[in-house]
């Protein structure tokens, strides 16, 4: 018996009404709710071409045409409890799908207004969040080129800023809300078009698929990134916004701005989720970056983040290194010259450690090295 696996909801109304699915060998299918069958939902299922599906997602092809354009006569019914949670077993049907009464009426377009915008079009076609960035370093002025090191560092900076923006966005949520989100790897971007036409452009896509409701967790991060770039033309306001994000996000942003100045380029980006009608667009010019870097460089501890650890002390020695076992994991760190003494602390006792976490980026690899510096400790 043929089976398929749900991949994405394309149209939702009191449950998935139209969804896409793949079979074991990568074939594409579309399912359309036809009628409930007791507590089961019943869907008509039809194999579709990748190109047809792309055009349907983009709002260029209507659903009925998509279902009819397959040259094969094969069509199926499936009755899962909900298509999103299980493998669907397909029951082959005889006769023409055209005469089945299960086809939608003409004119069901996923998007009524096909977009001219490249980012929104990509988001719809890929049914995922996409982000397009563009830079104009000196070597890109006369032709479509970029230094290897510049491109590698650019990609790393963008991913790092997004990662810390996601962390900052999550910290703004309640503990219950954070727990309800599957946030593993949600900050990751994949490069899907490494060198798009125009000034040097790169297209990213969220590494993880959108959730059932069509939203990418990454959107949370990019909304934070938008806040950082929103007032690029107004250094005083931009400075105030970055100060609000003091911590690893501000530190990553400052390192990124320094990189833009070093490589003599501005930075533009746009991003969209599949449901957007317009992309969100922002960026900063090389000229705008310089005064902002000057101002941010004068703020002490801009990139440091306060961290509180509650747990059992495992190690604490006179050299100023320590290790503490908390419910979230084991952490180790240092005491700066002039910092609190570890003398008298008992191994195995529970303490509250107030620390500052600083990030140092290794120039060769871009890898971040985190160090926790103890500021204060008290028995708990």
């Amino acid at each position, binding site marked *: 018996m043929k089976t398929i696996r749900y991949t994405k909801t394309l*149209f939702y109304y009191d449950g998935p009404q139209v969804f896409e699915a793949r079979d074991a060998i990568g074939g594409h299918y579309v399912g359309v709710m036809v009628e409930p069958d007791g507590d089961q939902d019943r869907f008509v299922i039809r194999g579709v071409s990748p190109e047809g599906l792309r055009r349907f997602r983009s709002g260029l092809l209507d659903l009925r045409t998509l279902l009819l354009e397959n040259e094969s006569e094969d069509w199926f019914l499936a009755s899962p409890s909900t298509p999103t949670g*299980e493998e669907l077993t397909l029951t082959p049907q005889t006769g023409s799908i055209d005469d089945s*009464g299960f086809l939608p009426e003409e004119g069901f377009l996923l998007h*009524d207004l096909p977009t001219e915008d490249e980012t929104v079009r990509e988001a719809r076609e890929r049914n995922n969040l996409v982000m397009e960035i563009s830079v104009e370093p000196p070597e890109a002025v006369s032709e479509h080129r970029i230094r290897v090191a510049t491109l590698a560092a650019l990609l790393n900076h963008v991913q790092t800023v997004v990662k810390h923006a996601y962390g900052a966005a999550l910290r703004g949520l309640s503990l219950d809300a954070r727990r309800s989100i599957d946030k593993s790897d949600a900050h990751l971007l994949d490069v899907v078009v490494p060198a798009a036409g125009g000034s040097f452009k790169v297209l990213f896509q969220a590494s993880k698929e959108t959730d059932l409701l069509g939203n990418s967790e990454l959107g949370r991060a990019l909304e934070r990134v938008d806040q950082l770039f929103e007032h690029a033309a107004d250094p005083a306001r931009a400075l105030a916004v970055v100060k609000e994000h003091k911590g690893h996000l501000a530190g990553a942003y400052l390192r990124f701005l320094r990189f833009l100045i070093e490589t003599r380029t501005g930075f533009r980006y746009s991003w969209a989720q599949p*449901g957007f009608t317009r992309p969100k667009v922002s960026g900063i010019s090389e000229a705008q970056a310089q005064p902002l870097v000057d101002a941010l460089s004068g703020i002490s501890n801009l990139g440091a983040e306060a961290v509180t650890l509650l747990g059992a002390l495992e190690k604490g020695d006179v050299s100023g290194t320590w290790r503490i076992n908390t419910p979230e994991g084991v952490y180790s760190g240092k005491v700066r010259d002039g910092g609190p003494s570890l003398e008298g602390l008992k191994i195995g006792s529970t303490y509250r450690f107030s620390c500052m976490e600083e990030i140092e980026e290794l120039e060769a690899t871009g890898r971040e090295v985190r160090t926790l510096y103890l500021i204060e400790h008290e028995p708990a």
Partner: protein
Amino acid sequence: MAYREELPPQCPPEGAEEITADREVFRAVRSDPPTEADFQSQRAEKPKKEFRGLSECVVRGVSVFSDRRDGEKLLKLPHMRGRLLARVRLTAGAGKIQQTFSPSHHTWWPFADYDILAHCGKVES
């Protein structure tokens, strides 16, 4: 304020907004005039159904569209054949609402005291 249906913890989600200003939404209904049954959530319609992969919060909400064209589009689906499109006026006290899935699709969690049928306007096929 109590909701029309018993909701799980953290539902409606933090992103949902309480309706305080008038707005219009559209919902597919079975008859003119609509009945209470037209505004049941998936959970109320199928109390024993297992909604795999869907959050219990979402299945206890009601789908509505803010853009009439999306409501009209919905009626083109085979499952919706014969249904009508009702215009519903949401006023202060209607409950909480959140945009979900597409720009026009919203999940609505009505308050228990809100008289939905009294706020239903024109119904069109």
